[in-house]
């Protein structure tokens, strides 16, 4: 029973980074952009957040937190924007650029925690803990459920509104189904694509900052155990629908938390997590989304 309780708690904690990354992926895939780079965007967001959050300032949390979050959003948007820029100006396939940017971000993270951002004690490859004022408020007596989870849910709903109830969301959906017609109709594909990539990166970067402020409180090398990659499976499982991916994120959060417990209790390596993700994608492919991205309903 206790294991089940800690499983549920663990899953809730994992929900926020997974949901933010899945929103990033959902947004991009809906517009027909293959953003495989949520992982890298999350990481640079977290790096930027760490830089801002470990400054020796004495600001109140109410002022500082938004600053940190803005920094992370900008960093994530920048990272996504690179891929978007290369796509719209040089016609470089975004699949390759986002993957390359993932690798660069991972090395950048490693460099940061070994070098400029390493803790003052200089012992372990990790950053100092963030300033106390910045820790996100927690809910409940276990003090692990943080407000970021609520934010993630709110953002899912906001994305839903954007996708199906705004003009720009309509353009994104239309572009994902037939970009030529959108171009012919007189909308600027380049503009939509570029901003979509920025938005996608911003979501992931925001998720990175929330994870930092809410859970880890410091930066280290394996800061993200592949959230950005899992997000692809989650988004597909949720049929690229911003509300359905809440459910699929929760499922994956349980898988993540369960894998962690299994590793501790039964010694099953955490790498099996990747296998689980792959299997989920294959199952989704088999039962659902054949007919190349035509059938995503409202």
């Amino acid at each position, binding site marked *: 029973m206790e294991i089940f309780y800690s499983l549920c708690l663990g899953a809730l904690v994992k929900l926020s980074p997974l949901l933010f990354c899945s929103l990033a992926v959902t947004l991009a895939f809906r517009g027909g952009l293959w953003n495989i780079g949520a992982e890298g965007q999350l990481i640079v967001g977290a790096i930027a957040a760490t830089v801002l959050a470990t400054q020796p300032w004495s600001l109140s949390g109410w002022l500082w937190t938004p600053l940190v979050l803005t920094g992370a959003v900008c960093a994530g948007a920048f990272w996504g924007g690179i891929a978007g820029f290369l796509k719209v100006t040089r016609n470089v396939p975004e699949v390759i650029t986002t993957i390359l940017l993932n690798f660069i971000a991972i090395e950048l993270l490693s460099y940061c925690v070994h070098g400029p951002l390493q803790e003052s004690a200089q012992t372990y490859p990790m950053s100092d803990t963030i300033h106390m004022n910045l820790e996100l408020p927690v809910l409940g007596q276990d003090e692990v459920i943080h407000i970021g989870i609520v934010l993630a849910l709110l953002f899912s709903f906001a994305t839903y509104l954007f996708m199906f109830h705004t003009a720009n969301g*309509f353009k994104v959906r239309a572009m994902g*189904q037939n970009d030529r017609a959108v171009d012919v109709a007189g909308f600027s594909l380049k503009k939509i694509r570029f901003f979509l990539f920025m938005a996608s990166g911003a979501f992931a970067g925001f998720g990175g900052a929330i994870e930092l402020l809410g859970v880890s409180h410091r930066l280290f090398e394996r800061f993200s155990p592949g959230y950005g990659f899992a997000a692809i499976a989650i988004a597909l499982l949720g049929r690229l629908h911003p509300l359905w991916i809440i459910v699929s994120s929760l499922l994956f959060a349980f898988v993540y938390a369960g894998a962690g417990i299994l590793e501790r209790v039964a010694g099953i390596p955490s790498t099996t997590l990747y296998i689980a993700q792959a299997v989920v994608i294959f199952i989704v492919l088999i039962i659902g989304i054949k007919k190349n991205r035509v059938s995503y309903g409202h």
Partner: protein
Amino acid sequence: MILEMNKISKAFGSLKALDSVDFSAVHGEIHAILGENGAGKSTLMNLLYGLYCPDQGEIKLNRQRVQFKSSRGARRHGIAMVHQHFTLSPNLTVAENLALSCSKNKNPFFSPSKIKKWAQELADQHGLELDPSQKIEELSVGEQQRIEILKAIAQNCEILILDEPTSLLTLQEVAALFKMFRKLRENNKTIIFITHKVLEVKQLCDRATILKQGKVVETVVVSKTTEEELALKMVPKEGLFKPFKKDKKRSGKSWVELEKVTAKNNRNTVVLKDLSLKCYQGEVVSVVGVEGNGQKELVQVVRGRLKLDKGLRTCAVERIGYIPSNRQRDGLILPLSIRENFILEPYFLKECSSRGFLNHRRIERFAQHLIHHYSVATETDKKPVGFLSGGNQQKVVVGRELALKPQAVVAVNPTWGLDVESASYVYKQLLELNQQNVGILLVTIDLDEALKLSDRLYVLYKGVLTEIPTENWTSEKISLAMAGIS
């Protein structure tokens, strides 16, 4: 009797495409299947070619009953069909394409010089001039088509089916094609020629089977009949819209002026050269020509969507309606609903949203209005537009663009692939608009269409625009200009 088709019926849902059709062909004849769009010509031949299965009836080849599950089966029995979409690989040479389709996998290696020689011989034998080392992408549509036919012959076909082979060709190319057909007839091949052009039947064919609304009207020996008789037999019903020539002076101002425009395509080659064009409000200006002579870029320039290298574009109007040539690719988003396709236009999208949010009620009202006004046959506006028939899809496009209350319209091949009724509907809409002093630029490959509708007519050939004076408005003269001979 090489081919017999007896009592063939085929229905698509509630639509009866073919109703107990009899058809037969003999060795070494050119047999026309004549009818308006939607009469069932293509369906009949697709059945023969194994693309569909007949609901009823039987097919006999050389008195043997056959049944094809796919086109591969038909080809094995010596039936080949040349579609409007060619099946040649543009990155290979003529010889490579021909050799590849005939190689029987014995020796995987080939020598380029040998296959070149072989292709040349094959071409000579069937009366076709070609350079076998040219890549397909360098050839004109007509040349590609003749190579397509040669490919079918090389695969030992006995019956050759051609679906509207002349619709994309200039008059010269048609002549070359007919020459090839006659040579094939000498070589005892059977040619089935799907067309709606009576004149071509008269020029070329031995017999003609006339289809009307899925039924055979009659099979006639062409030499014993006249063009008028043929034409009368295929017309489906009276009361269709007949375009008229207006006797009207150009009124008002020009809506778009191009002065000595030079422009490049996306591959950075110059496709429009020193081109000048002035279109006035209230007149229909046609630009005819074979695709690939700069049509696409001209349209983009007129719509202000392409950067000019040189020259000047002045446009006096704001809202230009645009009917693209390929509605499924350029005009619609098939998986989205009809309703959503109606707002696929910057102006409407703005109209139907407030502060960035979509106003679904306004969209619904707007969609209902358009569906009603342009009589789109559908029960709900939430249906994906891909489920509609071609004619209704075009109505969605036309409806959207005309609802814009455009001050000018650019229409590219607006009736391509439509049945007669839908086509005449489109004409009617365009001319009604024209009556309201809206300028119309019609870019088309269909000469008849241009002649019926235009006030002025241009030919676009290799990026150069030539005006054809009214006294030269005959198919022959315009065709010459379309082929670059004038």
